[in-house]
């Protein structure tokens, strides 16, 4: 991301935008949804699915387009992630990617 607007880098404007939408989500739920007694079930299901749905799109392409070391790392992390806490899985994944790349995979 390059260029400036009103003397500030676009990166800074993007961060400000991200901060505004994040605050909007944190304050907006109380302001808007508290007017409903109950959220319609399908809307509720959609809202519940959003974070996992977004995050999965950042993992899946990385698994198939990066290379064998990366694919193997994510496959093993997926398998152990069901049993181990996040931090343990993350550290093992980190060690794996370093080791597999060093091994030339």
């Amino acid at each position, binding site marked *: 991301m390059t260029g400036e607007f009103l003397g500030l880098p676009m990166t800074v404007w993007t961060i400000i935008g991200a901060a505004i939408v*994040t605050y909007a989500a944190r304050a907006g739920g109380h302001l808007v949804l508290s007017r409903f007694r109950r959220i319609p079930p399908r809307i509720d299901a959609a809202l519940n699915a959003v974070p996992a749905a977004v995050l999965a799109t950042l*993992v899946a392409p990385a698994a198939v387009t990066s290379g064998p070391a990366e694919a193997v790392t994510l496959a093993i992390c997926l398998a152990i992630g069901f049993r181990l806490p996040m931090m343990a899985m993350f550290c093992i994944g980190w060690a794996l990617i370093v080791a597999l790349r060093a091994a030339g995979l």
Partner: protein
Amino acid sequence: MSPTRSEFFQGVRASLPIVAAAAPFGMLFGALAVDNGLTVGEAVLMSATVFAGASQMVGLELFGASIAPWIVVLSVFAVNFRHVLYSAALGRRIGLFKPWQKPIAFFFLTDPQYAASEARADRKLALTMSWYMGMALPVYVLWIVEAYIGGVFGSLITDPAALGIDFLLPIYFLGLVLGFRARPNWLPVVIASGLGSILAFYTVGSPWHVSLGALAGVAVAMLLPPQSPEDGEIAP
């Protein structure tokens, strides 16, 4: 000690496990931010203003790919959209807050802040602004400091690939995806988003694979029969 002060320090004590758990990720954010082309100042600015770990990482991933700013902002919004539910749910719990305190409180409404507030309310303890800020401020202040520390050390790393730094975000995101696995219809949603994003990646191209893949997952969630009605319900 006045009730207000003791409540504040009860909040500080409740924040300590969160502070410890968030510290590595706060520093990782700073390091990855610099690795993705942000300055240390921009990394600190992002931690101080957005204050939402997962979405900050998503922002970084997209900053690195020279994507239109509005798409970055939209993606951050998508990841943080769950806070709408926290906000709506917490709204019922903060009757003791003064009207001017509520807009401040919502800024600090992270996942652990929400969980701890609900837990305190469940134990019939007073959920006051003093306790809430005692919980929030240590996490917030250290989150900013960690971005600075991580950023300074990140700029010392000359070969991120050899240390695996460039591939930490997908591993981190995978961990977050797994963290949501108790949600209704989690598996079909994740499969639909994953396959949808790969398909979109090869046909439409990046960055549209993010929104199109997410849309596929959300559509599946809407079409499948709802599970466990108590989940995500707002009314008590």
